[in-house]
């Protein structure tokens, strides 16, 4: 056998391979069952029925009993990553936004330094922006580490293609900087172009976790969103000035592009570029753009004037990325001091 193929055989399977195999097996057998049979299949073994019954009992024990669920959880931890559509490997941090539903893994992946992550979503009945729309919360979780990011959103805002992108450069989970943010449902793919340490432009595709119609039904949300994360190996951040918040120059080199389900690049409506540092650990999307998104929602009547999110408690404002400075800018935007976004 080719030595590389041999080495490939010896490598561990990608995360979630067993479960994916079982799903594929189920689809494949269903596929065959739909086909007209060419000849009779062999008679069922007399053990088939008892074996099936035992399998059903085992499945019930695993799914419906606490020890069974614990066993599944332990198995997931061993694998290191949850399954898409299933529960996350570890309990999700919910903060102020208590969950009203199960937590669903939307997507899984690995950073450039092979740290597995899960994109997890749930619905919270804690309102955002004072609207009646369901609150959708989405976390990016790195099982086994303390680094989780959370964002909660209301369908009422209907942000542009990308909302609130954040560059994480000091994650305790991964040594590789990553950018993450939210996308609206028409976005199927996100690519990130940045300048690496050799000065070359590099482009990577983000992992996008989408709340598909099936997941939206499970979460009972009307306005789904997507969440993306892209690991940026060798991002040029050497110009980070110790003690001064944020990397200087790194975020400006990053360009985000969005793509539809057909692979065509979208026009990038209201993509918020990464810009301004808030802490040493992250760079938040520019307050002006976020304020404009809110202002647009207010102006178009999607949320009422009295529902101005800047009047909400501080933790809610922080959860949706509205700082005091941003609220000042929002006020400015509403007063026409900033250019309004195009219709």
């Amino acid at each position, binding site marked *: 056998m*080719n*030595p*590389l*193929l*041999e*080495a*490939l*055989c010896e*490598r561990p*399977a*990608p*995360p*979630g*391979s067993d479960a*994916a*195999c079982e*799903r*594929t*097996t189920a*689809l*494949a*057998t269903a*596929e*065959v*069952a739909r*086909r007209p*049979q*060419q*000849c*009779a*299949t*062999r008679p069922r073994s007399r053990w088939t029925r008892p074996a099936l019954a035992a399998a059903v009992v085992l499945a019930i024990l695993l799914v419906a009993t606490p020890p069974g669920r614990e066993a599944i959880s332990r198995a997931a931890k061993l694998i290191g*990553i949850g399954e*898409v559509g299933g529960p996350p490997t570890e309990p999700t941090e919910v903060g102020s936004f208590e969950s009203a539903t199960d937590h669903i893994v939307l*997507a*899984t*992946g*690995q950073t450039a330094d092979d740290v597995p992550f899960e994109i997890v979503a749930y619905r919270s009945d804690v309102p955002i922006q004072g609207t009646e729309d369901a609150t959708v919360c989405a976390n990016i979780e790195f099982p086994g580490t303390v680094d989780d990011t959370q964002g909660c959103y209301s369908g009422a805002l209907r942000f542009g293609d990308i909302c609130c992108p954040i560059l994480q450069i000091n994650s305790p989970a991964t040594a590789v900087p990553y950018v993450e943010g939210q996308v609206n449902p028409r976005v199927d*793919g996100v*690519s990130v172009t940045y300048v690496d340490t050799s000065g070359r432009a590099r*482009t990577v*595709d983000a*992992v996008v976790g989408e709340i598909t119609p099936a997941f939206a039904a499970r979460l009972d949300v009307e306005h789904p969103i997507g969440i993306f994360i892209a690991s940026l190996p060798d991002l040029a951040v050497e110009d980070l000035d110790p003690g001064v918040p944020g990397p200087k120059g790194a975020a400006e080199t990053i360009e985000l*592009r969005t*793509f539809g389900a057909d*692979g065509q*690049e979208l026009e990038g409506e209201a993509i918020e570029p990464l810009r301004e540092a808030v802490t040493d650990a992250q760079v938040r999307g520019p307050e002006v753009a976020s304020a404009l998104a809110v202002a647009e929602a207010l102006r178009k009547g999607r949320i009422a004037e009295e529902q101005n999110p800047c009047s909400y408690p501080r933790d809610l404002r922080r959860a949706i990325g509205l700082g005091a400075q941003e609220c000042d800018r929002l006020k400015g935007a509403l007063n026409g001091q900033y250019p309004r976004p195009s219709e």
Partner: protein
Amino acid sequence: MRRADRDLVLRARAGSADAVTELVRRHWVLCHKIAFLVCGDTAGAEDIAQEAMLSAIRGLDGFDESRPLEPWLHRITMNKARDWLRRRARHPELTLADAYEGGGSEEPDLPEYAASELLGAIRELRPGYRVVVVARYVLDYTSGEIAELVDIPATTVRTQLRRALAELRMLLEKEARRESAT
């Protein structure tokens, strides 16, 4: 084809769910690994391997059971991986220089590194290069077969292989430097 595979194929064609299950389970892991090596994305690899398996099951009637099953499955997997990359392609991998340079008749040799290191570095290559390198050096395709797979001239395949291997060497050397520094 291995006897067991042949029996499974015949039984699967006849509608045996057990045989289909066995076929998928037996060949899933390697197809999944190949998909992951080429696309470098967990969800993508699962989609690719799943599509490949389902396509294979649907196409079993057209499969020549006197031939080995694995290369056929790997070819379907590579086709699906190529389609997946094309769907996600943001930048053309084939540059004008690739197209006009011409590849010559020689295929470059893989640098001499441990297989595990090579596989690690292959994952770091650009997606288009990953396809040709995996096809040539992991699955033993000829330039002509790769040309058919990715729909470019065989000479361009050889150019791409040379460039891919140059990039691969650079990655391996960089990794070696990093290791020696630590």
